[in-house]
């Protein structure tokens, strides 16, 4: 059971702090650094927006879920955002470095 998603790429650099507990109104920021997603597991409320910010010198991407999240490759300083609508667990990876893995637990 995976969340359905609405997403958009915003190449403007996210700057909100990451959230460890469920949030709905604010963006939850996941940093990408040293070929890791940080935090690599997040819990958000349905309808929340998640922003992945690439702090690495290499390109990364976010791929996973069904319907699929597909960010495309984005570079250092760029941010990809998506909104998660349905409760469920999403497992995602970097499509360029698939050993990089993260999960999103979307709660009602």
């Amino acid at each position, binding site marked *: 059971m995976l969340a359905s998603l609405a997403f958009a790429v915003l190449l403007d650099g996210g700057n909100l702090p990451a959230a460890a507990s469920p949030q709905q109104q604010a963006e939850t920021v996941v940093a990408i650094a*040293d*070929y890791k997603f940080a935090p690599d597991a997040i819990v958000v409320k349905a309808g929340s927006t998640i922003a992945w910010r690439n702090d*690495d*010198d*290499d*390109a990364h*991407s976010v791929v996973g879920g069904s319907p*699929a999240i*597909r960010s*495309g*490759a984005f570079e250092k300083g760029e941010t990809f955002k998506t909104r998660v609508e349905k409760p469920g667990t999403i497992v995602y*990876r970097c*499509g*360029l*470095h*698939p*050993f*990089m*893995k993260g999960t999103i637990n979307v709660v009602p």
Partner: protein
Amino acid sequence: MTDNNSQPLSAVTTRRSALRCMALAGSGIVWAMSGGAPLAVAKLGEAGARPPKHGLLFAQISDTHLGFSGPANPDIASSLETSIARIKALPRLPAFLLHTGDITHRAKPEEFDAADGLIGAAGIETHYIPGEHDVEDQEHGGLYRERYARGAKGDGWYSFDQSGVHFIALVNVMRFSDIGLGALGAEQLAWLADDLSALKNSTPIIVFAHVPLWAVYPDWGWATADSAEALKLLRRFGSVTVLNDHIHQTLQKIEGDVAFYSAASTAFPQPAPGSAPRPGPKALPAAELPSALGIRSITVRRNEAIIADFNLA
């Protein structure tokens, strides 16, 4: 968890007593395969050199990464131009080129256009397979397939024959295993079994794929999860050569009658397996960069695949 049987370009050793030394123009290494076993023949010096005069000659380029910009190589296009020039300077023109993926860095149309322009300048027919960078568009490889894989099966796999050699293009960047390794998938493996079924055991086989079909360094994703199933299908053949890149460095390994060769990138180097905290573009002093980039020629002659790696220095 690297494979300690693999050998980098700089570490030339002899695996068999019956070595055949060859001379090649420029700086490079020739690997020869005899009776199914690859031989690191010699580290090559300077002038006078030639790849074998006879046999099917083709060339491999890889990981051109058009669109990349970073300190690891501020002029990707120039490096690719040099690579093409090196190929055209071979003593005879290769019958074709194999591009083993990561044509582009971000799968943008303009990056594919740039690659087509630079590679097309060679005037040599080119066969492609995708790297993971080439399928990062919203259609998950739609741009790649439209340009390079219209006649291919599934995600873009295909085979062809030339001069008695059977070439197999495999795609292992469209799906991942649970631990983040590349994967071929059941459909492609079934196609491979069918593709091989009519071939005689004596048919020389050249397989090319982007991610290594041998476990170079799984912690960095430098392996293919279900490669053993493909290799099982290839086991009955007496001469099998597997060409890949993805790791941006020359390595070679033998498993039975199968020889594996990973190639250099034309764009930028990466660290040796496990030698750094993580993979990724490796910046070198400008003077050292050309030595870390390269192209490859392959000559198939009497069931031998003779591999010559050339750097761009």
